[in-house]
């Protein structure tokens, strides 16, 4: 039994080694710089170059503002931008949540009923050949200037990657795991809940991260097709007045929303999929 005892000790050491140690402050800073440093430097460098060229070439602000002019405009135009940002944020968040719930729900249903999957899956793919944004004006005619047409556009755009990744994830399960569960008295529901769904979670989150980057496109197109508020509306209203810095400021706000949503989905993935080892954050 001494061999077994020794093995147990070895295994305990192994668990300790594998358990992620809390890195010392210096290493943590270094690792954050390692993952965020290069893109941050590239962005700063690009903005510096932009600033330099626009200033040296004496490009007027209404044609192309410099990053510093955009920053100043963010501050002066904040009373206009803030309410618009909140409107668009609401459209994006609600649309995303609706499509995530509907997308995961449909993926599970189609997985449970293969006949339905064979019937619906080609239609789902086919629906992607319709540019969903051209539906925006039609939805505005049908539903008016309110939040509904924007939600529908955002949800339609986010829906597809979530459903397709969900179905693929649910089907990717190792068949031997299911056989094993069947010998352990698992019902269809138990297999779905304890094997297939957890196995599909990484895929589902991949779909949601793609959807998070698409969601802002849907909201802006919805607003361009007919609205009196939101960041898309601010951009539309600024164009004839040549308030170019304000348009750029609105773009900065949209980018911030998309990045935050992407970050939030990645964070949720870390919380709900802790068993998948990950490298650097946000990749």
């Amino acid at each position, binding site marked *: 039994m001494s061999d077994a005892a020794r093995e147990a000790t070895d295994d305990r050491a*192994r668990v300790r080694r594998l358990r992620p140690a809390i890195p010392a402050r210096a290493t943590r800073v270094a690792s954050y710089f390692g993952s965020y440093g290069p893109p941050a430097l590239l962005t700063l460098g690009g903005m510096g170059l932009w600033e330099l060229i626009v200033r040296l070439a004496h490009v007027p602000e209404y044609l192309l503002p410099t990053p510093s002019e955009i920053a100043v405009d963010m501050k002066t135009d904040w009373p206009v931008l803030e309410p618009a940002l909140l409107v668009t944020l609401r459209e994006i968040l609600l649309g995303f949540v609706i499509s995530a719930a509907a997308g995961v729900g449909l993926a599970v249903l189609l997985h449970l009923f293969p006949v339905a999957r064979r019937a619906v899956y080609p239609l789902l793919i086919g629906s992607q050949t319709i540019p969903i944004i051209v539906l925006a004006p039609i939805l505005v005619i049908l539903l008016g200037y309110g939040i509904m047409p924007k939600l529908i556009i955002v949800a339609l755009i986010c829906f597809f990657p979530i459903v397709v990744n969900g179905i693929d994830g649910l089907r990717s399960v190792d068949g*031997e795991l299911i056989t094993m569960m069947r*010998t352990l008295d698992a019902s269809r529901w138990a297999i779905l809940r*304890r094997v297939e769904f957890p196995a599909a979670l990484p895929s589902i989150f991949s779909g949601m991260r793609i959807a998070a980057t698409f969601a802002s496109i849907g909201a802006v197109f919805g607003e361009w097709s007919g609205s009196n508020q939101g960041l898309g509306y601010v951009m539309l209203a600024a164009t004839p007045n040549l308030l170019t810095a304000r348009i750029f400021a609105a773009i900065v706000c949209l980018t911030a929303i998309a990045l935050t949503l992407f970050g939030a989905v990645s964070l949720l993935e870390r919380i709900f999929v802790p068993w998948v080892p990950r490298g650097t954050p946000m990749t």
Partner: protein
Amino acid sequence: MAGTADALAIELREVAKTFGEVVALAGIDLSVPNQSRVGLVGPSGGGKTTLLHIIAGLLEADTGLVRVGDATSARQRLARCALMPQRDLLLPWRTALDNAAVALQNRGMPRAEARNRTRPLFERFGLASFENARPAQLSGGMRQRVSFLRTLMAGKDVLLLDEPFGALDSITRAQMQEWLLQAMDAVPRTVLLVTHDVEEALLLSRHVVVLSERPGRVVGIVDADHGFEGSRREIVTSPEFVTLKEQALEALGS
């Protein structure tokens, strides 16, 4: 392998199975008495796993009789057998304890109660303090222990072990054989052990059934009801054990 039909946990008569053109099993007869341990050795690809899947009710035989206890239909057999696969097949999203407790939860027991019922086995079988480790944090030997406890916790009359240590290195494998012997002595069940290792079969079971190459047929039975005492090394190197091993190898034709 004497005994009346009532004392048989598993009974196979003329069981045959064909996949397309390939005859996997050509008329297998096998009797496993209640509470006994039977080893099944044979060359790779000889239909051993197919045979286990038929007994477990995961597959239906083309012809012949398959009986587990009083169950003959595949569905009833599935309810009476627990299968331990060669790969540990632990669920990576569950802790070791939750993996071992999964069969109880499948039967509708709340998670906390299932965990409480499983925990004593962890302490008893050398897994204490690993309850909350994820499978990725465990060594191969540890994972097979958890896999065996999961099979045990299913509470079935019949355990079907499909090359349980086939994927382990020889040192870990020897340790696991000792561990399994103790575990099986502590919790007696009817065990059918499939392996391609004659030594493992003789060490862990009382009767060893030798299967031929595909199409699988029973070509010999070695009774290893030796009651050997001592450490694994002493048993394996004893003259009696070596004689049994020679008998089995001869039946295998190697």
